[in-house]
């Protein structure tokens, strides 16, 4: 069970692992919230790769994890994208927006939205920007709004920005403006699940993710 935003590199990694270990993997992508609820309802999942820590916390609190299997696998950066190719200092965002919209994922629910809000707040811009925010279901939709010109700016992950040729990164949010963006993973069953998690931390696997724009694990596993 994996967050949908991991789909591309994870597929490749899983293939690689299957070749190496001979184990078949079945990957089920969906939003982290959906996955977490399924797991808490008893879904027969072996590994849970979440896009944020909150849902992993929830699953952990529910007692579903193999103790001590939880690791932070990847990190990501938050960027401001636009269709114009010129960089924009973040502080000028409110002026640049004027009457237009800033596309973000749901600022109270979806991780990318939560991080974005946090960052804007930290930068003291949230008050000015909030009335102009157009929230979308997920990061991809926010990106689409920008790509299609419906909104001039959007806040998305660096990974998304890298995959969409129609937008350019106007600014990157400083790391310290928001809580670290962490993709935690954990095993739900013992055995191969733990092996897979371990494999994801190996160099070849991390390389696949780095290619897609993910940063490495932000710190040593707790």
């Amino acid at each position: 069970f994996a967050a949908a935003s991991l789909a591309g590199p994870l597929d490749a990694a899983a293939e690689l692992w299957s070749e190496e270990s001979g184990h078949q993997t079945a990957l089920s992508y969906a939003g982290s919230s959906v996955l977490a609820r399924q797991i808490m309802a008893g879904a027969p999942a072996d590994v849970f790769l979440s896009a944020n820590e909150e849902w992993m916390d929830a699953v952990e609190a529910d007692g579903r994890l193999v103790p001590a299997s939880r690791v932070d696998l990847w990190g990501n950066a938050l960027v401001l994208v636009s269709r114009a190719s010129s960089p924009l200092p973040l502080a000028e965002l409110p002026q640049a927006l004027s009457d237009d919209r800033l596309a973000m994922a749901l600022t109270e629910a979806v991780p990318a939205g939560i991080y974005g809000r946090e960052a804007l707040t930290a930068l003291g811009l949230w008050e000015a920007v909030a009335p102009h925010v157009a929230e979308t279901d997920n990061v991809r939709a926010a990106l689409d709004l920008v790509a299609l010109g419906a909104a001039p700016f959007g806040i998305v992950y660096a990974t998304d920005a890298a995959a969409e040729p129609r937008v350019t990164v106007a600014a990157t949010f400083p790391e310290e403006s928001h809580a670290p963006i962490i993709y935690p993973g954990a095993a739900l069953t013992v055995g191969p699940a733990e092996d897979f998690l371990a494999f994801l931390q190996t160099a070849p696997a991390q390389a696949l993710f780095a290619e897609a724009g993910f940063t490495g694990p932000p710190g040593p596993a707790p």
Partner: protein
Amino acid sequence: MSWLGPEEWQAVALSFRVAICAALLSLPFGLAAAWALARGRFPGRGLFSALVHLPLVLPPVVTGYLLLLAFGPEAPAGRLLDALGLPLAFRWTGAVLAAAVMGFPLMVRAIRLSLEAVDRRLEEAAGTLGASRARTFATVTLPLIAPGLLAGLVLAFAKALGEFGATITFVANIPGETRTIASAIHAFLQAPGGETAAIRLTLVSIALSLAALLLSEWLAARMARRVGA
């Protein structure tokens, strides 16, 4: 209902407005499409039927994306409407369009079924009594398909209340403008611990649709009584 916050009230009011508008606005188009499908014999009828059903088959997000492509601020259709003073992007009007499109196949099918059940001999009779085709339609066909129209409205209304996939993709989720009950529920469900708020809104949604349903059932019963069936 003091247990709903002002933002939630806003969402409820907006949902209601969007659903009503979506249902009513799609009615004439649904009627026209149903007529074409039930009575028309033109090349490409099958294709047209498929097009009408498309929003049912496609994941709502796709529909929303297509709407964005067609009516986004950079698309010609979107620009035209904008110039005409009917901006759709990020407006509740866009939510209406999204909801209407999603409910369209349901409405068309309901009306079409009713149309196909109309006794054509009554339309013939109207013609011999001096009623033009338009008048026959208005005074005979339309009243006879009233159950289908009503069913279509109810389905479109209910669908509009429950729709968020296409809506959120097309016009995002802006409190007070495009944040309908369904989007709000969805948002609440994304965050851990949002269940109670989601349940509250779900109940409101159910109450709204129940009211619409009961109204429609009552209207239908009244019509049936009038026909004496």
